[in-house]
């Protein structure tokens, strides 16, 4: 075929296209940030929840569990665990680990005190209150 195909044009399209779509992405990000307060349950972001999130992170819970579907796929989803199990079960379960059942997956014992357990539960409660467009499909996560 005749007609030209030059590197200079291809390069300009790359730079122009990349800049264009990145700006669009920034615009959408801006809009998302505006829309978040209605969805992200941030009104319930208490100091206790924040401490719970810190515990969640510093014990690398995401290395086995998923939270809102993100993380490892070795242990149950915890975004909705507050609804699935309730606060008392969660605390009792964490305290009872590891089960030591031969051949079963084991969760370490993290030696949380009662206040820390409450912090974690509050974090799960807050997470459960985030509007996730109805994900997961059912209570099992």
């Amino acid at each position, binding site marked *: *075929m*005749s*007609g*030209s*195909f*030059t590197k200079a*044009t*291809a390069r300009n*399209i790359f730079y*122009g*296209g990349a800049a*264009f779509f990145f*700006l*669009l992405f920034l*615009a959408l990000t801006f*809009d998302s940030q*505006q*829309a978040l307060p*209605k969805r992200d349950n941030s009104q319930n972001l208490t100091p206790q929840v924040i401490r719970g999130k810190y515990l969640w992170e510093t014990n690398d819970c995401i290395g086995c569990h998923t939270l809102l579907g993100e993380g490892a796929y070795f242990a149950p989803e915890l975004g909705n665990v507050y609804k699935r199990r309730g606060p008392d079960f969660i605390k009792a379960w964490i305290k009872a680990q590891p089960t030591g059942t031969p051949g079963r997956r084991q969760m370490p014992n993290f030696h949380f005190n009662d206040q820390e357990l409450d912090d974690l539960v509050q974090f799960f409660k807050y997470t459960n209150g985030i509007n996730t467009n109805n994900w997961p499909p059912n209570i099992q996560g």
Partner: protein
Amino acid sequence: MTTLTLQATPQKSIPGDLAMWFFILAELLVFGVLFICYGITRFADPALFNAGQTHLHAGQAAWNTLFLITGSGTAVLAAHAIARLQYRQGSIFLVATFASGVLFVVNKLMEFASYLGQGYTLSTDNFWMFYLFLTFFHFLHVILGMVIIAAVWIKLQQGHYRNGQTAGVETATSYWHMVDLVWIVLFPLVYLIR
């Protein structure tokens, strides 16, 4: 109507740079998928879309169609003028295309301001989400088209495109025509049909 020309033209060539046409085809693909998604969502809930549509300013959008068509026309004239070495004329026509872009942008911004002032956002409902995203996405394309036209105009002033070397100009105008073509589908789709 225009597809009936059967006599083989001596040499067929791609207007402008092939790389631009890859870009144009990719853009058309994106817009095409977006339009069809709009159609399908509207099919599922016509009442919502018809209700939303009554709040749109179709007359203002018609003006915008005229701006883009005019810009497209002057872009064609610019390419022809430059091919015939009439650089001054070509320069004026490019400015005209750019100016039509400015008119479009100003008019569209006023329209956006009106809707946002009434509290409509991307999260209002499916109609407003599609309307705002589609037209904003297209709006950005008009701005990119203006940038490209401006770049060609500057190159023209710098004395590129000697001896009727119009590939660069055609590359730019092809993009503008694409933006126009997309709007020609978008305009009846969101403003008129119900």
